């Protein structure tokens, strides 16, 4: 347990220091959402209708933005070798790294959502619905994205590969995340239906992500 706690602490600390990736995601999220009303024009009804989708799209792209560094920086400086050799199972170490990434890069997105909701003319109910679905859905994005990040370790231009590999896998999260938010705002579907599926996707990704990432890291070591 100390080993995993140490790994989480270290990754969060690096992300929050100068040059770490924690703020890049939030800044990107902010940029996309702030620019959207200017692009769509001053139609308040349209903004309200599109708001949840815009927030979800921004959060999805922002959480993938820094994900390709999840393993590559450890690979480049040799830390990954020691992590693989360590007494902590690699699957758990991967899960810890993903959790640290989500805490440093995913959680700030959710905290920023209420502010950005104002820009998109969303009321309190709509904003909290989006924030809740993001809270449940973004961990799934991180854990699914981790598989691509692990595959990208041994390849150059891993970032491109990450996008190609991970984006198709994250489409279900996007669909049910937006569907649940829309259901809470306008219906006619009950909120619970898409929301439970979103929760299920997250839980599945918690199981599959670490195992797939660890397998590809072991295979890719050279």
């Amino acid at each position, binding site marked *: 347990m*100390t*080993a995993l*706690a*140490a*790994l989480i*602490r*270290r990754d969060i*600390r*690096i992300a929050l*220091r*100068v*040059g*770490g990736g924690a703020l890049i995601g939030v800044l990107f999220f902010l940029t996309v959402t702030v620019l959207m009303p200017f692009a769509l024009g001053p139609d308040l009804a349209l903004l309200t209708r599109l708001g949840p989708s815009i927030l979800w799209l921004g959060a999805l792209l922002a959480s993938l933005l820094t994900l390709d560094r999840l393993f590559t920086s450890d690979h*480049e*400086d*040799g*830390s990954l*070798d*020691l*992590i*693989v*050799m*360590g*007494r*902590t199972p690699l699957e758990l170490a991967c899960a810890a790294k993903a959790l640290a990434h989500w805490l440093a890069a995913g959680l700030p997105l959710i905290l920023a959502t209420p502010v950005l909701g104002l820009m998109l003319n969303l009321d309190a109910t709509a904003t909290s619905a989006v924030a809740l679905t993001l809270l449940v859905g973004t961990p799934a994005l991180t854990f699914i994205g981790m598989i691509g990040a692990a595959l990208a370790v041994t390849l150059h231009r891993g970032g491109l590969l990450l996008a190609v590999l991970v984006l198709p896998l994250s489409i279900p999260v996007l669909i049910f995340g937006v569907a649940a938010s829309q259901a809470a705002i306008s219906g006619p579907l009950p909120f619970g239906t898409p929301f439970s599926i979103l929760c299920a996707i997250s839980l599945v990704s918690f199981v599959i992500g670490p195992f797939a990432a660890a397998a590809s890291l072991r295979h890719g*070591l*050279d």
Partner: protein
Amino acid sequence: MRLRGRQIDCVRGGRAVFSGLDFEASSSHALAVIGPNGSGKTSLLRLIAGLLVPAGGSVALEGGADELTLPEQAHYLGHRDALKPALSVLENLSFWRDFLGGDASDPNESLAKVGLAHATHLPAAYLSAGQRRRLSIARLLAVRRPVWLLDEPTSALDAAGQDLFAGLMQGHLARGGIIVAATHAPLGIEADELRMGGGK
């Protein structure tokens, strides 16, 4: 305790690096792996560390802890320092001590032993190559592991640093440890030699 490799074949990128290699190192003995560039010294160390899979043959540690694998009982000091520039010297070392676990000692003490006691709060980004190497060596002291796998351990170290490291290796051997070191320069300790790539 005895580290033994039998008939190891190593293939990387479709090319046979070495084949049919035998070696043996027992407690309190150091094995210096020497040979020209590209003869497979690093590959051999990574193979022992479990970071490469041998194409044939096997490596085993006899007489070690039963419930641990060989990589879990070994320290690997590679070309790359496994240091994070954003973290301070002490944070870097404390992380590895906590992560590697097992029989650990006070990181401040280990830093003092490698001559970095004055720089504990300096970010690792500001360290020189020799200081980075010293910090990596402190990791070997902070967590006790019976097998040390060292890849060019004395590169970037000054003369005083090389003497210091020779003393540390001596201490490790005196406690019954095993050292396998790939090197071009003399290690400064008594060591058996394993010559690589001699036949080519």
